[in-house]
């Protein structure tokens, strides 16, 4: 189905570790129903989940806009959180500002952004301190 197109929008609640990841979970199950290859679904799920968790932990929540085509998915994550002062530093594996209580929950390894870059075919991040952060990712199927 060459003209298949699905648009989904999710509100991601800030600082809620019980719901964190539910948007990624929903996208994963949509792709599964569409019959996308499981290795592609996994890349989408991991990249989006990392981005979703970042909005929960670091930005007080945000929105996820997802456009699914027959051959690719575009994911846009937008928040109005505190923003990132030094993007180059933030992209480095191991760099994290996660507070201790977040680390006790298993986050703050500083691997989220590097993982997103690794699993997405196209990765773009824009951020402004005091304004917010926007992450755009594309993953091609097959």
């Amino acid at each position, binding site marked *: 189905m060459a003209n298949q197109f699905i648009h989904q929008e999710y509100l991601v609640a800030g600082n809620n570790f019980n719901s964190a*990841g539910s948007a990624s979970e929903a996208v994963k199950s949509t792709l599964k129903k569409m019959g996308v290859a499981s290795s592609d679904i996994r890349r989408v799920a991991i990249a989006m989940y990392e981005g979703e*968790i970042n909005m929960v932990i670091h930005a007080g929540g945000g929105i996820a806009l997802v456009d699914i085509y027959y051959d690719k998915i575009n994911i846009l994550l937008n928040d109005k959180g505190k923003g990132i002062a030094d993007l180059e530093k933030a992209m480095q594996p191991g760099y994290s500002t996660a507070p201790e209580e977040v680390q006790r929950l298993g986050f703050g390894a500083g691997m989220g952004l590097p993982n997103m870059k690794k699993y997405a075919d196209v990765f773009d991040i824009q951020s402004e301190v005091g304004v917010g952060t926007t992450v755009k990712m594309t993953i091609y199927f097959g």
Partner: protein
Amino acid sequence: MKISELSAYIDGTIVCNADKADKEVYSAFSSDMMSDVLAFVLDQGVLITGLINPQIVRTALMMDIECIVVVRGKTPDAAIISLAEANGIVIVTTKKNMFETSGRLYSAGLKA
């Protein structure tokens, strides 16, 4: 090895989805940091962790991991169990620590 065999190697208890305990697992990853887990794709892998919160199940779900081993005698609460049950993920608990759990399962043939 089957999940039921894995559980026996570490004197474990299968706390949910016991009907899926004859699934085969081949590899494992031990960590308390979820992004470390998300950095490496495992096939038919097991997540060994000392954490107990819903994110261990969500992380496993994103990775297609079908078995989580919770070490150091911790007990996952009802919310974690029901999320795992809904997604067909088997949770095994053990009193052993992460080092001994990993060592026993590695010796028994699980791949790194």
